[in-house]
């Protein structure tokens, strides 16, 4: 396998006393769409700034195409950033904005205009060449910022919460467009967000960050289905979390002692370890065919209609402080006050070290 396009090695960063990144290592493959996902304060934006050259890390190195870029200024590295507020130059036309990077490279006016038009056509804004940024809508400005960054053909495009300023509908629409554009140009995108739906929709490689560390990384399907840590399980989608203690391993299965009795599931864990069992809402069974793991009865406390499904909250009869988060199909007749038998299948349970 060839060397990764970007190689971040053991990077740490402090702002004054505050450690915002703690020994982070990350590889980015050519042509991939990487998402840095995490809550605010998790260090994801700082990591992006380090990649873009706006911040020099306190420790560690950043290699891009095999060259050490740790202290190289933004202009001199093959990365370009799309800023959260787009940072379009308000006094220049859209065409001049897009052509700016080429102008700085000394490209002549005619070539510049041609390339800028091409880039604008790529993002579907060919007709806006002569407009001023303030004449465009939020989504259009976003696309101009994208065209401006792509036109100088960077090796890596960095996007800092690019959809954060858009309303929900536009956001989902721009998501699809971003993905399509990335496929077309084949540039590696690194995109920061705190929206897990955005992450799942866009990422080839999803990096979950918390408190300055990478909690989990991999294809979004894997991160969702088999999260490595409790944080990752709760941040990337919802889960019902059940505390337990690991018992004997036998035939590739481990028996976990829980408040609902011993549960045997296919996993590995040291004997006697405190563990957490996470169950995704869609894997909890409230009615119909029972799963192979019974979780007692529960009283439905709330049903929230969400369009394509119903989100059901239910309080365990065994422990009133314990709450199940489940998903029922939209036509289901379940309502608050009902008593239901809760179960699930052992293979759907995720075992997390606690």
């Amino acid at each position, binding site marked *: 396998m060839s060397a990764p396009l970007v190689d971040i090695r053991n990077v740490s960063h402090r702002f004054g006393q505050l450690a915002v990144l703690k020994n982070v290592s990350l590889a980015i493959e050519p042509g991939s769409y990487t998402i840095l996902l995490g809550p605010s304060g998790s260090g994801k934006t700082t990591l992006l700034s380090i990649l873009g050259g706006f911040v020099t890390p306190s420790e560690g190195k950043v290699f891009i195409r095999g060259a050490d870029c740790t202290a190289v*200024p933004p202009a001199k590295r093959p990365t370009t950033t799309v800023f959260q507020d787009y940072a379009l130059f308000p006094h220049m036309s859209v065409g001049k904005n897009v052509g700016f990077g080429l102008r700085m490279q000394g490209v002549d006016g005619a070539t510049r205009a041609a390339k800028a038009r091409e880039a604008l056509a790529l993002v579907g804004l060919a007709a806006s060449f002569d407009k001023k940024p303030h004449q465009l809508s939020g989504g259009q400005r976003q696309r101009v910022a994208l065209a401006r960054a792509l036109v100088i053909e960077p090796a890596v495009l960095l996007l800092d919460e690019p959809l954060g300023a858009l309303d929900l509908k536009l956001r989902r629409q721009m998501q699809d467009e971003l993905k399509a554009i990335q496929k077309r140009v084949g540039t590696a995108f690194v995109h920061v967000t705190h929206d897990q739906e955005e992450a799942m929709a866009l990422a080839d490689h999803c990096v979950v960050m918390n408190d300055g560390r990478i909690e989990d990384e991999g294809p979004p399907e894997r991160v969702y289905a088999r999260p490595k840590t409790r944080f990752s399980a709760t941040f990337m989608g919802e889960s019902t979390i059940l505390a337990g203690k690991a018992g004997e391993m036998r035939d590739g299965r481990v028996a976990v002692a829980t408040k609902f009795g011993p549960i045997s599931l296919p996993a590995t864990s040291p004997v006697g370890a405190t563990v957490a069992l996470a169950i995704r809402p869609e894997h909890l069974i409230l009615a119909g065919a029972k799963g192979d793991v019974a979780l007692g009865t529960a009283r439905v406390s709330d049903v929230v209609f969400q369009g394509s499904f119903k989100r059901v909250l239910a309080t365990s009869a065994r422990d009133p402080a314990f709450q199940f988060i489940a998903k029922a199909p939209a036509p289901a007749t379940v309502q608050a006050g009902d008593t239901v038998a809760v179960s699930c299948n052992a293979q759907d349970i995720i075992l997390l070290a606690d």
Partner: protein
Amino acid sequence: MSVAGTNGRALPWALVTPALAWTLLFFVLPFIAMGLSSLTAHEGGALTLANYSQFFTNPSYWRAMVNSLEVTATVTVISIVLAYPFAWILAEQVPERWQRLALMLAVLPFWTSYVVRSYSWLLVLAQNGVINRALTSAGLIAEPLQLANTRLATVTGFVHFFVMLLTLTIFANLKQLSPSYRKAAADLGAGPVRTFLHVVLPLTLPGIMVGAFLTVVLCIGDYITPQILGGNNELVMPQLVMMQIGRRGDFPLASALSIILMAVVTVAYLACARWLKIERA
């Protein structure tokens, strides 16, 4: 946040140094020079506190300070009392689309030259000026009134200027108030008068204080208005300072008087600053 990709520490200092140097050289250094000068004797240049002790022992100097404070206090109070209702009318009674024009008109004479503005009042208040002419031809008075060269003239000239300044600051403050405060007060049963007293007035107090502070600083340090309109019958501090320079070339005494004047303004500032902080908390 540290910013990478800049030319070290040299660039930022190169940017801010000229302005800082200018301020140090032509503001701080003159101030030190003035302080040193105030401690030297006019004749001979020996070190002395005589310039300061003169102020405290010579009753005519004291009188000038008292006059300054009295004029400033009178002007500040009258200006606020006149300007507040005026700003309120502009902000509340004038239709929205005429407001900008109404305000621009209200402060237009603000932009006449300082010297010319005082001179214009002299035309109005002179022995045979507009007011005296109007009153005599209306048969209200037999002899022209002594209006110019009085404290009344000084105060009128000042009030004219500061009414405009205060109208600006109070108007801005009234417009900043969210209309929902008033709606909420009305919704909770307060009538227009109580809404004004308990909601609008307290919320515009900071604007009044800022305006009042500006008025005090500008009024107490002004030489032109009292000189042109008040004449030499009753001196205020800036006139006294200018007199030391003009007639006698006594820089040390002028410096000492300036420093005393500035100390008074600083005290006023500290008083206002504390007041404003209490308001905000």
